């Protein structure tokens, strides 16, 4: 789950990373009486999860005297279609130079990887294209609680040594708060020291409970409902609803739809041991999606009981056509239940997908 800038900075601050004076507001009224410490100018930043926020008008520098007015304007905006619900007001830092630092997980090496660039303030992908030599990386074993000195030396190169402790603090933020990605861009040097001028933090969805986060804001309402059922669910834009068990099998079903010229409406992995009720909920959830014309249920496995699955499909009783491919225990009974209720059970994945794609094409004619 992505944290907003001010949330990331709250964590940075706890770890001693300087973030500059500032506070977050939910309405212009909250500014009253709190603007003393800003100096002449204030940075007004919309707290929206949007890439390229600055260019989209989500960050402006206002005269301190105008901050209320500018905040009101900002609250009225939508940044790339996202309404502004919170604004972070921050002191304007006397920036000398901008750097980039991020930490993520290197799946292949199974270590934390720290990426540093002496060219901050631009996206790292752009630096990678235009000036790859400005980028340095080090890999830190998950068993290390601190970054060894030699790594920090290698990472920083000629950049000021005073950045080192901030990067080490950020490493602790990352490791101790279940980070998937943490980024400071720009990390700035000023006459007052080093500051994190921006803050990005994506946390591990599997560890939200440890971070005291109850609701995963990255999910749509329907995705959240799917999650509470224990489904893995992704919304797409086609007409063929897909229910599978196992991520790989479900993905593969989606791929075959595409190969045969169809378009999937969603990805839904019901998980292991799908019983009557789970299958019923899954079918209903997918049927609810606008535009779904036909639904594929593709379940395979040792544990899955085909009769239960069949009963779940029948129980859901959705209006769309449901094409079923089942393999497991009690296959014959399952087929009987489905046939009796007017559902079609097909022997292979190839069959069920090709029939679904054909059905959609027919419907479109």
């Amino acid at each position: 789950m992505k944290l907003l800038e001010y949330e990331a900075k709250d964590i940075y601050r706890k770890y001693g990373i300087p973030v500059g004076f500032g506070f977050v507001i939910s309405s212009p009224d909250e500014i009253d009486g709190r603007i003393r410490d800003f100096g002449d100018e204030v940075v007004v930043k919309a707290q929206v999860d949007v890439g390229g926020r600055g260019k989209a008008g989500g960050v402006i520098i206002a005269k301190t005297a105008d901050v209320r007015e500018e905040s009101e304007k900002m609250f009225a905006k939508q940044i790339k279609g996202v309404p502004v619900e919170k604004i972070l007001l921050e002191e304007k830092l006397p920036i000398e130079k901008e750097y980039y630092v991020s930490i993520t997980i290197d799946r292949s090496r199974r270590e934390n990887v720290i990426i540093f660039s002496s060219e901050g303030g631009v996206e790292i992908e752009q630096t990678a294209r235009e000036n790859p030599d400005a980028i340095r990386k080090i890999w830190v074993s998950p068993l290390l609680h601190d970054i060894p000195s030699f790594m920090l030396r290698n990472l920083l190169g000629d950049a000021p040594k005073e950045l080192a402790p901030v990067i080490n603090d950020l490493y602790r933020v990352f490791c101790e708060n279940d980070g998937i990605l943490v980024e400071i861009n720009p990390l700035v040097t000023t006459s007052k020291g080093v500051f994190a001028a921006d803050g990005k933090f994506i946390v591990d969805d599997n560890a939200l409970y440890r971070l005291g986060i109850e609701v995963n804001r990255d999910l749509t309402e329907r995705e959240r409902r799917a999650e509470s059922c224990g489904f893995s669910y992704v919304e797409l834009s086609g007409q063929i609803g897909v229910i599978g068990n196992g991520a790989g099998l479900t993905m593969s079903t989606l791929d075959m739809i595409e190969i045969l010229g169809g378009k999937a409406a969603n990805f839904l992995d019901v998980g292991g041991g799908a019983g009557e009720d789970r299958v019923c909920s899954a079918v209903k959830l997918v049927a609810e999606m606008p535009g779904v014309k036909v639904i594929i249920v593709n379940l395979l496995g040792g544990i899955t009981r085909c009769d239960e699955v069949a009963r779940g499909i029948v129980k859901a009783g959705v209006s769309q056509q449901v094409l079923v491919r089942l393999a497991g225990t009690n296959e014959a009974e399952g087929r009987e239940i489905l046939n009796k209720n007017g559902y079609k059970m097909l022997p292979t994945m190839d069959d069920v997908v090709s029939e679904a794609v054909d059905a959609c094409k027919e419907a479109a004619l």
Partner: protein
Amino acid sequence: MIYGDKKTKVLVQGATGNQGAFHINLMNEYAREVGGFGVVAGVTPGKGGQEVHGVPVYNSVREAMAEHDVTASVLFVPGKVAGDSIMEAAYNGIELVVAITEHIPVHDAMKAIAYAKLNGCSVIGPNCPGTLTPGELKLGIMPAHLSKKGNVGVVSRSGTLTYEVVNELTMKGIGQSSVVGIGGDPVIGQTFVDVVNRFADDGETKAVVLIGEVGGNLEEEGAIAARDAGLSLVTYIAGVSAPPEKRMGHAGAIIAGGEGDAKSKIKRLEALDVTVARKPSDIPVLLREIL
């Protein structure tokens, strides 16, 4: 024999939960069928003294190890404690941990896998179906009846998709030396490379089926390892239709930062002269051609 054989004595951590108990029974059914030891002990803290399908349960791995000579452990504990359980197995000298558990926080997995390595312990998974060597040993939850003894090694990041492929192979008369599900999480212990190297050393495997998906670049590394070991290879990559930045079921199946999408994976595999199947049902056909 790749990760064990009939003589392997198995521990189950998280023995008293539904899943643990259910699969202790299935693993031991298979063990009886092939004449192996199977699961000889279980661990659940606080439940020491109980029995699950005739298997004694202990409070800790240490207590279990004092009574039984186990070398492999299968994990069914909840995600929150799975990292700790992997470390407990490694600390007590267990050589192989098969972590079925999903939803392990990735930092826990990373630390536990590194700690296991430091202690000479290999981890399969987490978030994996485990491994099956037909006629020898089942570690985990793979449906054994789909499989048939032979000389094709199957290694996969997926669970049911693996069963699909194994089923296709068996139906076409192609048996398997071993089937290994390495898990769908972004950080896993045994990678394609490790498994391919075990296939190269097992004296049984003639060809390898490698089933990958979006996210990361482990498939390419595994393909190179197979080539270097002189093993024939057919691959399949799930997720050509997966949109970027969306997690496709597996925590590890995500195209992030413009990296790890299926099409460029397939392109890189083909550049290595590796056969890539378009759909699972093509795999047996392609395998026949190269065998």
